């Protein structure tokens, strides 16, 4: 186990509702999410002395949020980031506290991901102005290849060819995550779906159908990290950070389609370090979360992080394996595919709530910390939720993960 294992904890989480549209600014939403996370932890503004955030030039800054909420920061940093930045910023927070830059750090993401700037193009259905293709975009937008779906689709197509997997495996993931969303009052889409529903849904970009793609929403979310000593005094039992990584591929640190295997991702190079630091094996993991921007990204994260061998994820997910009460429940809030899209944060938040045994589901008694574990009554709290592995991003340029444990583990 690593020297930092269990030394730092996640003590507060909070978010705004997933909406489309929010009719709010990213600053307003960020303030609410951070305030909710402070309330969740039982912390006052004067207790927070560090703040980090990530964005894709589509959000507000730590300075704005801290000013609005009356926080006085010893450390603040806003980065350009994507889907693996949540776990990376949590790891960064550990380093900052360890080095003495701050004592309690909030990491946030705020985005009008539906009504504001959308990734990879223009707004379908709206007026279509001329668009400039500059920088990287000269060599993708120029031939109509811009959206994350179009670009992940290229890796997915090659994956299907290389492994013999079919889109029925994609469907398994859509069905599992939607089932979890059906137990989540906050989720955008709560109607359960079947494999056939997936297979009949319309094409977006082959090999992806509508039900392979995440739900773009307007939302903000925040996570508070502090030391174990401070964590014990707060409102909820701490969730311990056992291990993690945030890194690029060895061969190719940035979008590069000449890399040897188009569907190899950074996780292939990180998980041994994370699991070694945590002192666990895959068998110790009770549930997982993954960056399900697309169904396919779940498959490659399972392989990249060693839950199954390369090329075998399609078989691995069959028969509802990723569903609650099966072998390896995944994305228990419904994830990006069904709950909404926070650019990676909501998985960490859900994992924290599950490890506290406080999943905010439709179960009538959960506010007292009691769960019926009765799925037909709307309960999505896992009975055995001691250790989880949260995996983020399915591309070569950055991957990350966090291994977390609750008090009982």
């Amino acid at each position, binding site marked *: 186990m690593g020297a930092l294992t269990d030394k730092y904890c996640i003590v507060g989480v909070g978010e705004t509702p997933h909406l489309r549209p929010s009719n709010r600014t990213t600053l307003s939403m960020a303030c609410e999410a951070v305030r909710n996370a402070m309330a969740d932890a039982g912390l006052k503004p004067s207790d927070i002395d560090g703040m980090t955030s990530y964005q894709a030039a589509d959000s507000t800054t730590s300075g704005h949020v801290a000013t609005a909420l009356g926080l006085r920061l010893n450390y603040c940093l806003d980065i350009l980031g994507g889907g693996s930045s949540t776990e990376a910023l949590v790891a960064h927070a550990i380093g900052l506290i360890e080095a003495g830059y701050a004592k309690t750090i909030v990491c946030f993401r705020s985005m009008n991901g539906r009504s504001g700037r959308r990734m*990879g193009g223009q707004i*379908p259905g709206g007026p279509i*102005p*001329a668009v400039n293709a500059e920088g990287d975009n000269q*060599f*993708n937008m120029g031939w109509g290849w811009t959206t994350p779906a*179009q670009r992940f689709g*290229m890796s997915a*197509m090659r994956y299907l*060819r290389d492994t013999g997997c079919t889109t029925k495996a994609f469907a398994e993931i859509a069905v599992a995550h939607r089932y979890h969303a059906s137990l989540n009052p906050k989720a955008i889409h709560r109607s359960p779906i079947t494999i056939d529903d997936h297979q009949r849904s319309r094409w977006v970009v082959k090999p992806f159908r509508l039900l392979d793609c995440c739900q773009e929403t307007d939302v903000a979310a925040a996570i508070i990290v502090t030391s174990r000593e401070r964590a014990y005094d707060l409102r909820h039992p701490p969730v311990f950070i056992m291990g993690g990584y945030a890194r690029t591929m060895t061969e190719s640190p940035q979008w590069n389609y000449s890399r040897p295997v188009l569907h190899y991702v950074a996780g292939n190079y990180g998980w041994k370090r994370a699991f070694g630091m945590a002192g666990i094996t895959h068998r110790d993991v009770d549930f997982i979360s993954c960056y399900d921007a697309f169904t396919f990204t779940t498959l490659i994260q399972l392989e990249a992080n060693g839950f199954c061998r390369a090329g075998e994820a399609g078989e691995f997910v069959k028969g509802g394996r990723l569903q609650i009460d099966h072998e390896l429940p995944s994305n228990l809030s419904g994830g990006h595919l069904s709950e909404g899209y926070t650019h990676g944060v909501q998985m960490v938040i859900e994992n924290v709530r599950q490890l506290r045994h406080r999943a905010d589901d439709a179960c009538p008694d959960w506010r007292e910390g009691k769960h019926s574990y009765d799925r037909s009554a709307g309960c999505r709290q896992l009975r055995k939720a001691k250790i989880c592995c949260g995996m983020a991003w399915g591309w070569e340029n950055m991957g990350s993960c966090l291994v977390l444990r609750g008090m009982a583990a």
Partner: protein
Amino acid sequence: MAVTIDYSKLRILPDPDTREWWEAARQHRYLVRQCKRCGHKWFPPNIPACDKCTAMEISWFETAGKGVIHSYVVVVQPIVGAFVSSVPYVVAIIELDDCKEADGTVTRVAGVLTNAEAEVAIGLPCTVLFEETNDPKIVMPRWRISGEADDTWKFSE
């Protein structure tokens, strides 16, 4: 001809790293980047340093514009206005025949295919062609399937 792109809705803006590439395309030449120090080749050409040896002394390699389809997608829902009237269209990643390096690296490029979805498959050979656009400064390289192959794979719905 399946793809009609409206370049009045999509302005390509060459920059100091890419101006020569677009100029070569106007002359119907297809370039990839090449490192002057180690000879490594890469694409896209806006990357200004060699990812094998870090050299920034870089030049160009003029390819014959022939390769094999490594992967592809079929865009059904357009998201950039210039492509609204083109769907469904195929974008492919192509391995260039004349850019194979001793260590096994093959330079891959991306581009839109002129062929329809029904004809595309991984493993098929294709050739570049150059098309005038309604932007007089931009000639756009496209790719067309130019032969058959034994070992091909096609997406099955």
